[in-house]
């Protein structure tokens, strides 16, 4: 029932061909999108800063990224003397590959109906298939898996450079990624509980009934906000880009990288931005769902999907242009003391809601108990935080 209908009746050459086509198309799409994303960001920021931005290469500077890429490709590949040769080479690929793999689970098109299963298929070469590279039964978990692997890219890059600043940058980055991964995961779980499935395809199908079935609405916005903040932090995007704080850390973990390897990091970062936006759309905004007006029914959903993603791309750039960078302790405080408790509480609340609905529990008793629990937990949390602050102050006075 879950899983791509393509493989339902065994695998033959056509299936493999379609699969290959999907991979190539998705990869190509991502690459091109990344190219334009870079341009988009530079252009948008320059607009916000009242300057012109790239405008020489190609019309409106559209080919600027391409030109940069070519330049990177032909630059000399430097490797610091103290670097660990193997790991130094490995790290950029880890970053890039994980970025691409996460995108594989995003449904980018197909007409969805309000039931999970075989809706949202398109017909290619006479085969029914989903418009997504893969729909593994564990679906959204792949995102979490990949974001945990992505840490390796950063960490190993910083460590293998054999240099101080990259190391500090990478430790910061991985600490940050790990800290926000918990909040990220919990907001995803909130959606999973509501959807009752891990498959991204089915999650989208659940949201096909219109705006009020979007998980943005049914999960009560909070998970989305948590996800957005956490995702920004995961991406090391401003205002959480302490990793690359030039004033403190030069360029962060990739300081020592140059040439094509640097380009790979660069690519990975922007790929990740796109993937995260796509995931957000998938989880909270109904994915490719949207009204279909005329003709080409399979075309409209993709258009909807891309427009939704564009909105988030814009938001990310907007963040960068407007928000000041956080201090490291503020970053950690936000993650551990606000987002995690909040998402945890919200997760419990949603579970309780679902339980009440399925078990027909008394409304007042359920939410009364919830409020009591919240009060108790909140008090404890606040007291604990205060005590922690006190201890911290005392320590710093002693020191």
């Amino acid at each position, binding site marked *: *029932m*879950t*899983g791509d209908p393509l493989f339902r009746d065994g695998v033959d050459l056509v299936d493999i061909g379609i699969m290959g086509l999907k991979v190539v198309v998705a990869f190509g799409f991502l690459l091109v999108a990344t190219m334009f994303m870079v341009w988009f960001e530079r252009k948008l920021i320059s607009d916000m800063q009242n300057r012109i931005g790239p405008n020489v290469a190609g019309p409106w500077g559209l080919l600027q990224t391409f030109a940069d890429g070519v330049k990177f490709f032909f630059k000399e590949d430097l490797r610091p003397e103290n670097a*660990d040769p*193997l*790991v130094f080479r*490995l790290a950029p690929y880890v970053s890039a590959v994980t970025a691409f793999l996460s995108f594989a689970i995003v449904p980018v098109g197909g007409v969805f109906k309000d039931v999970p299963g075989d809706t949202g298929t398109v017909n290619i070469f006479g085969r029914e298939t989903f418009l997504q590279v893969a729909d*593994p*039964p*564990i679906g959204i*978990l*792949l995102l*979490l*898996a990949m*974001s*945990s*692997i992505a*840490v*390796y890219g950063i*960490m*190993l890059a910083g*460590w293998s450079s054999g240099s101080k600043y990259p*190391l500090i940058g*990478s*430790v910061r980055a*991985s*600490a940050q990624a*790990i800290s926000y*991964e918990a909040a990220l995961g919990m907001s995803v779980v909130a959606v999973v509980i509501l959807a009752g499935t*891990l498959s991204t395809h089915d999650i989208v199908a659940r949201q096909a009934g219109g705006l009020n079935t979007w998980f943005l609405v049914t999960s009560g916005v909070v998970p989305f906000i948590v996800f957005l903040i956490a995702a920004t932090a995961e991406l090391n995007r401003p205002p959480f880009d302490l990793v690359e704080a030039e004033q403190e850390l030069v360029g962060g973990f990739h300081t020592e990288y140059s040439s094509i390897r640097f380009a790979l990091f660069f690519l990975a970062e922007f790929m990740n931005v796109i993937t995260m936006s796509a995931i957000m759309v998938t989880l909270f905004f109904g994915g490719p769902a949207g009204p279909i007006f005329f003709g080409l029914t399979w075309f409209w959903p993709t258009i909807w999907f891309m427009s939704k993603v564009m909105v988030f791309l814009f938001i990310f750039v907007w963040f960068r242009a407007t928000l000041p960078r956080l201090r490291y302790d503020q970053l950690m405080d936000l993650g551990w003391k606000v987002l995690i408790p909040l998402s945890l509480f919200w997760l419990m609340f949603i579970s309780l809601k679902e339980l009440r609905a399925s078990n027909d529990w008394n409304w007042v008793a359920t939410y009364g108990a919830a409020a009591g629990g919240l009060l108790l937990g909140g008090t404890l949390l606040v007291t604990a935080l205060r005590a922690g602050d006190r201890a911290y102050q005392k320590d710093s006075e002693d020191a």
Partner: protein
Amino acid sequence: MVDTIVFLVAAAICLTGAVGVILARNPVHSALMLVMTLFGIAVQFVSQEAHFLAAVQVIVYAGAIVVLFLFVIMLLGVDTAQNLEIGILPAQKWAALCFGVGSLALTGYIIMAVDNPVTGRTGLSGAIDDTANVRLLARSLFSNYVYAFELTSLLLVIAVIGAVVLARKPAKELPDEAGR
């Protein structure tokens, strides 16, 4: 056929990684080799329809546990981490030899049982159905294994206290009181 190839490739990855862990001089390399093994295992899980476990394997093991290793290595500094040594047993090498031979014999034992490795009893705690792996797991987790599940909280509490106790700076910097 495909199964066989997948198995062999993943097994090769696992074993290479495992051997790499114990051969690498640099702890970071060991950790990476460990990740390699973990991925191999995850693939084996997938090929046995244990998708959820495969994901958890990557998220928890590779994403948390090994990262923790790397953290500690970086915290200590690789040189320290590399030169850190501790004698556990008086005759460790001999013990290793005994253990290796013993457990190879054990493996042989298992191979001898190839024909009938398991007795074919099925479905005590919920039959496997690859389409509903997660559901079944959840059901089993909260029925047959609910006690064990709740007990993991005890384990985690202890681990947290332990981590705090061990990693915290002592209140007063008293000198080490070694031995005699």
